């Protein structure tokens, strides 16, 4: 009889995220058979009926790999992050939210009070005459109902627990996931702890096929629908803000290849840099105006500056959040 390799134990968890990361795991398509052949899925709330208590009962370190997607928005996310850290040998921050804070992280431009006020009182589609807000504990005749505590801050996974690897992207490229997964299964040489995996080591421009010249001076910013893109010239040289120069490659520059500027989901090129700040600094260097008023005029065309530069990285950036 053929000697079978012991299967590795795999968990996938979804914290503060949209769900796209979990779907990206399913996007392995027929490769799923290879994955299943070498791994047992021990915990994956979107696909398997397993309770948190089942995880609590597992031995520490008994899960080989956990792909943790989503940021830490509330006490439930934090609890699960800590629990899965304890139970897992390798904890992977999977996707932009877990890696950098991601889109949910843009909530750091508000705080809990502002968010609750908007959502439970002001929102056009909300009818809430008694201004009831979610309570962590709620007494009902049957007992006490619990809801997770909503935090002021959104945090990336590594602000809560130690992370072994980061697999960036919104969502990560499925091909990269398979590569990383197979590397773990086959016991190939893994990079040092704390590394970004499944991505390149330079910025998007390295792979981007558009023509780049030294003429980067920007006289006016355009949103993509405002001009007819020639499909050939670097977006920046056409006045369209592209986060590519500050963003790690590895996604296959799919947005750019599809004639849309890079939004920056793969995060910073080097581990310790802050892509939003770097990009703002870079943009300020190439604005083709000298007088403050003229500069102001060029900048007026940038819509939602903070959201554009920090779309995926606010909670892990230097500014982290709006001052409370």
């Amino acid at each position, binding site marked *: 009889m053929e000697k079978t390799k012991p299967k590795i134990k795999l968990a996938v968890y979804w914290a503060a995220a949209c769900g796209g990361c979990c779907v990206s795991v399913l996007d392995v398509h027929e490769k799923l058979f290879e994955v299943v052949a070498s791994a047992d899925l021990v915990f994956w709330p979107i696909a398997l009926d397993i309770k948190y208590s089942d995880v609590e009962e597992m031995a520490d370190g008994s899960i080989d790999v956990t792909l943790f997607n989503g940021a830490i928005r509330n006490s439930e996310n934090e609890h699960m992050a800590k629990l899965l850290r304890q139970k897992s040998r390798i904890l992977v921050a999977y996707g932009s939210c877990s890696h950098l804070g991601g889109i949910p992280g843009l909530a750091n431009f508000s705080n809990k009070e502002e968010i609750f006020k908007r959502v439970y009182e002001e929102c056009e589609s909300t009818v809430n005459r008694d201004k009831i807000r979610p309570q962590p504990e709620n007494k009902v005749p049957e007992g006490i109902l619990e809801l997770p505590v909503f935090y002021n801050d959104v945090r990336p996974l590594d602000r809560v627990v130690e992370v072994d690897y980061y697999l960036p992207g919104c969502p990560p490229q499925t091909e990269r996931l398979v590569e990383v997964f197979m590397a773990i299964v086959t016991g190939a040489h893994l990079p040092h702890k704390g590394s970004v995996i499944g991505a390149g080591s330079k*910025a998007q421009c*390295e792979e981007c096929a558009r023509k780049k010249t*030294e003429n*980067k001076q920007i006289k006016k910013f355009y949103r993509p629908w405002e001009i007819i893109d020639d499909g050939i010239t670097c977006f920046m040289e056409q006045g369209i803000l592209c986060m590519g120069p500050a963003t790690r490659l590895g996604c296959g520059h799919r947005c750019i290849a599809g004639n849309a500027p890079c939004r920056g989901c793969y995060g910073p*090129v080097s581990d310790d*840099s802050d892509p939003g700040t770097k*990009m703002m600094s870079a943009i300020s*260097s190439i604005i083709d105006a000298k007088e403050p008023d003229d500069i102001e005029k060029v900048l007026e065309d940038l819509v939602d500056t903070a959201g554009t530069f920090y779309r995926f990285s606010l909670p892990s950036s230097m500014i982290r959040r709006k001052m409370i």
Partner: protein
Amino acid sequence: MENCRIGVYICMCGTNIAKIIDAEAVKKSVSKLPHVELVETYKYMCSNPGQEMIIHHIKEHKLNRIVVAACSPNMHERTFRAALRKAGINQYLFEMANIREQCSWVHDDPKDATEKAIALTRAAIQRVELHDSLESLSVEMCPTSLVIGGGIAGMTAALELADAGHSVYLVEKNNHLGGNLARVDLTAPYLYSARDLLTERITRIKTIDHIHLHLNSKVTELTGFVGNFRAKIYEQNGKTDGNEKLTEVKIGNVVVCTGYKEFDASRITHYGYGKLPNVITSFELEKMIREGKIETKEGKIPKYVAIIHCVGSRSLEFHGYCSRVCCMTALKYAHEIKSANAKSYISDIYIDMHAFGKGHEDFYRRSSEAKTLFLMYEKNDRPVIRRAGPKDDCEMLIEVNEKLSGETIEIPADLIVLMVGMEAREDSAEVARLVNISQDKEGWFIESHPKLEPVATTTDGIFIAGTCVAPKDIPDTVAQARAAAARILAKISKGKIEVDAIYSEVDPDLCSGCRFCNKLCPFSAIEFDEKEVHSHVIAAMCKACGVCVAACPSSAIKGRHFTDSQVFAQIDGLMEVVHFAE
């Protein structure tokens, strides 16, 4: 990082620092910090015993990082770096905290000032931990020079360099040497002939073998850096036969002597230049004098000649500056016209008589005695010229609101000479781009320091001389040309040039070739490697300004000695103390 052992020295600067700052309190506060091996306070750290103490401690305690909290690094950074070198450790493993200029001299509350001194010192300590050993570069100095422009400045510079035995490429765009001076007859105030001044020089230039003269030529490209430039000289000999030649030369330094052009008098429409046939410019008069005949367009000897000063100069509309040579040249004309025709009446219509040069005042006095009528007009209240009537015995009449008498005076004129000022040449922007220097708002080339570095520029190895810098007369032009040559000779005799170890560098493993930085370098130190598709900083040309570091979106460019981690460590050091205080 190797085992970090920091020595911290707190200077009292006599009482300069000690009178406000409690040096002992600073010592106490920093002595427990990680990696701090010893802390000393001392009266004068910059003194010999102060430096000796550092050297001794480095050897005795195996210190490998030094922080001196004292004055501004502008004052003594070099002193202490030298001490580190003497002690045998790399001079960049050093940081200064400025607790004098930024602290004791500007604060009067001892408590607050001491707290700030602690913050600055801690910041320096946290920064120095991350310092790297850096080595400076040494590059060869090519002894050949390039001089652009064959006027009096360019010729003087070229001869000065050649007389010292070095090769020179002298590039002149016209088919002859001499520049604007070749258009002049006599020179003020001593009435030397311009031709005599030039002929000897032109002859020598043509006979010296190691002056390579390129007439009808232009420098079309300049690449490289001080000591190691490459220039392309494009030569077109005769426009009809199409005989073109491109020479590529290797040079170490460049002197730009591209001169000036005269103000276009037709821009002041109401003087009627170009419309009234006998309103001429100073250069047109100069031409008449050289040809030996001062006459009106109709071929008559002018009985009344009027000279109007400051045409295009000292005016809000045109050029605000004084062109410096016109006043004396106007007096020279009065003299020359009188010599040619003793019966001429000359009026000299001026704003102020600028006679600041050597011998000028004397020349003015002699001219005043020679029956020239001087009329002063108010700036921006220009004399008005109109055609004379049939009854007048002159061709034109000039109305001047004479400032000294306060009266409106009408004077006759058959010939009116407009003293056109100097302005930057139309190709000066092209030249500035070519050699990478800056221009002021008038188009003149900018010197690296207006008083102390009048012929150097912000680009190492590029010098400027003569009227391409600003209007000036012949003696000043010659002095600048010789000064530029002297600066170059000093560099050549040193043989090699040291390039500071602080410059920015591109990590080729991180650069993705986005090309954001390519055009930003004020010193043109960044080149793009088309083959490898990444940018590269030429260390010898970099002045460590950090513009490219800030512009690099992918952190591929690092400013040596100013890395993100060093600067952040310094900020953290400052902020920790702020938290303490709170």
